[in-house]
């Protein structure tokens, strides 16, 4: 009893600094946010008034909120699978490449290193109608007056394309590490047995990379719900909320409408979404994956 207390006490002591920060900057604010989400706290109420679940009710009747959530699901569906596939492809390529391997890896990884605001400005130019890079490119095919960021049906695709470009290189790094962890003997054995390259990938490489895929997909999925800076620079969620995403909507509600109660309620929804994603990983997919 005493010994185990001493041993556990030591462990707790080691955890204490992180725990303290977690409590102070994560759990405490979350608790306060959840509390505030039950109040009407906006410009018309000098002192917040308790209104129970009214903010949540209003939210689910709010057209913009529904649009934002739909956009976010679309955005996740658009960025996550493609981003991961591209990352895997680039990793396999960069791993195999005999010449210029270092160059290849840094070229793929480079977009990750540029600050978000700079990226947004670069892409703002790329998408400019008439003389932007995209328009120049498409003008060879006789199309050049597409207003990528100003057309409701196109703006999400423009965003998705940019984020895939930005994130695939980052995820590639994890796949590269994963590839290097796979035992060489497996490949040698397959070679001796004369197994084809595609079968090797399907039966050995891909299954053994599943833990990485899982990790990357969680990161990608949560990232899809955390995007805000590009919207701020490039579209402000427009036109007519076509590119508005949850975190940007929270920012608008909090710091442009000054509706703190509603912003807290929206934050609570976001926390719930992120927890759900983590829970699916933890209780669902994780058990089906083979770790060696």
């Amino acid at each position, binding site marked *: 009893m005493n010994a185990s207390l001493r041993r556990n006490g030591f462990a707790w002591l080691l955890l204490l600094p992180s725990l303290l920060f977690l409590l102070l900057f994560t759990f405490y604010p979350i608790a306060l946010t959840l509390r505030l989400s039950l109040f009407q706290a906006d410009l018309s109420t000098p002192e917040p008034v308790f209104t129970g679940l009214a903010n949540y009710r209003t939210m689910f009747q709010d057209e913009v909120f529904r649009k934002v959530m739909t956009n976010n699901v679309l955005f996740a569906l658009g960025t996550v699978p493609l981003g991961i596939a591209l990352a895997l492809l680039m990793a396999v390529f960069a791993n195999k490449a005999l010449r210029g391997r270092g160059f290849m890896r840094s070229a793929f990884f480079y977009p990750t290193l540029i600050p978000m605001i700079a990226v947004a400005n670069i892409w703002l130019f790329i998408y400019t109608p008439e003389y932007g890079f995209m328009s120049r490119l498409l003008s060879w095919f006789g199309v*050049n007056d597409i207003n990528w960021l100003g057309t*409701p049906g196109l703006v999400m695709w423009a965003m998705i394309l940019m984020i895939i470009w930005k994130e695939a290189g980052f995820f590639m790094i994890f796949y590269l590490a994963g590839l290097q962890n796979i035992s060489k003997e497996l490949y040698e054995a397959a070679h001796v047995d004369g197994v084809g390259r595609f079968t090797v990938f399907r039966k050995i490489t891909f299954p053994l990379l599943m833990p990485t895929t899982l990790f990357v997909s969680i990161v990608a999925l949560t990232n899809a719900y955390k995007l805000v800076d590009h919207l701020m620079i490039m579209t402000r969620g427009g036109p007519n909320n076509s590119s508005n995403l949850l975190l940007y909507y929270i920012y608008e509600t909090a710091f442009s409408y000054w509706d703190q109660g509603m912003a807290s309620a929206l934050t609570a929804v976001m926390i719930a979404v992120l927890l759900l994603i983590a829970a699916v990983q933890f209780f669902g997919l994780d058990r089906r994956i083979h770790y060696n």
Partner: protein
Amino acid sequence: MRKGNVMVMAAALGMSVLAGCGSNTNTNTNTNNNNAAGNGSGTGAGEAAAAPAANGTKTELTYYYPIAVGGPLTATIEAMTADFMKENPDIVVKPVYTGSYADTAVKTQAGVQSKQPPDVAVLQSTELFSLLDMDAIIPLDEFIAQEGGDTYLSDFYPAFMENSQTEGKTYSIPFQRSTIVLYYNKDMFKAAGLDPEKPPATWAEMQEYAVKLAGNGKWGLEIPVTGYAYWMLQTFALQNGNNLMTPDGKKVMFNTPENVEGLQYWVDLAAKHKAMPGGVTDWSTVPSDFLEGKTAMMYHTTGNLTNVKKNASFDFGVSFLPAQKQYGSPTGGGNFYIFKDIDKKKQEAAWKFVKFMTETERAAQWSIDTGYVAVKKSAYETERMKAYAAEFPAALIARDQLEYASAELSTHNNGRIVKILSDSVQAALTNELTPAEALQKAQKDADQALASFNK
């Protein structure tokens, strides 16, 4: 409680907007130390210290200011505050550059809620009702009375004062103000067989010219949308009769036949007449398009005048926006506000500073440096302004248009109201809704957003 709210959300969002007010206290203490220690060093504060203050203590002011147009304005502002401190050795002003108008509003209001407001700040004139709802600012009538009351105020252009006053009180003093004007490319006018000295004066002419000027991958006209859709809609509303809101900021009139006609006219320029790009055009690409010769005409703030003057490789003209029933443009830009939860002494010092920054000669110079309209009539009587206008007559267009100008959209719950209207205008421009449907929806949503202020 309020402080807690903001902190929680900021932390939960993982944003560092509050960094501004935290560091604010530090800089104050630093200035303090400097003054106590340094006598007559080369800095602005030091020079102020060299002249002994009457009672030895100094009043310190924190001054937040945004920059919304191009150019090295930080240096201009800092030079102006240094001049002020030379003239007022017992006051130390600490200018803090706070980003765009929106950034400045966020920093200021977060400061207000955590009981650490700036002492004086330049914010959009349309923030009036939000600041009042937060109980953040003081009326300036007592100070104005000391300066001669109405005589003092009457030197400011009335169109600029509209956003400063409500219920008989004056809450802010105009500083960096603008209106929307029409810029046009004279070379392209000539090429299209139009008289380069005769810009379109009516909606009908505008449409006719824009159609003539469009073609070959070039546009006749561009009107920016992102961020300012409501502002541009206001031009059509004012030209067709009436503004969009009541002066008390509690009601909006979006859904009128005149406004529907105005929005329809705007939508048709792109959808029907193909004289303007379809969809939503970005605020900052419109001037580049104009300078690149991609569009023959543009609606834009007069704040861009100096930029266009410096960068246009062709002969350009500036004129009033075309009229329907009358000429019209909303005003825009930033005003000085003085904050509530600070010493009386600081408020008095802040008033001195505001008065100094808007003095006639200084207003004239500020206008020349930036392209903003000088806020006082007397500024246009100064020698320097007369000389400048003689050399560059376009500088007077925005001033002359003020006669037909009116308040920018400003209401209670302004952030949401502006967003509601902008979203609807965008929906119309992208053909998701007809102009009538869009404005009907905007009216309904806005009435709901204003309901709690009309009890």
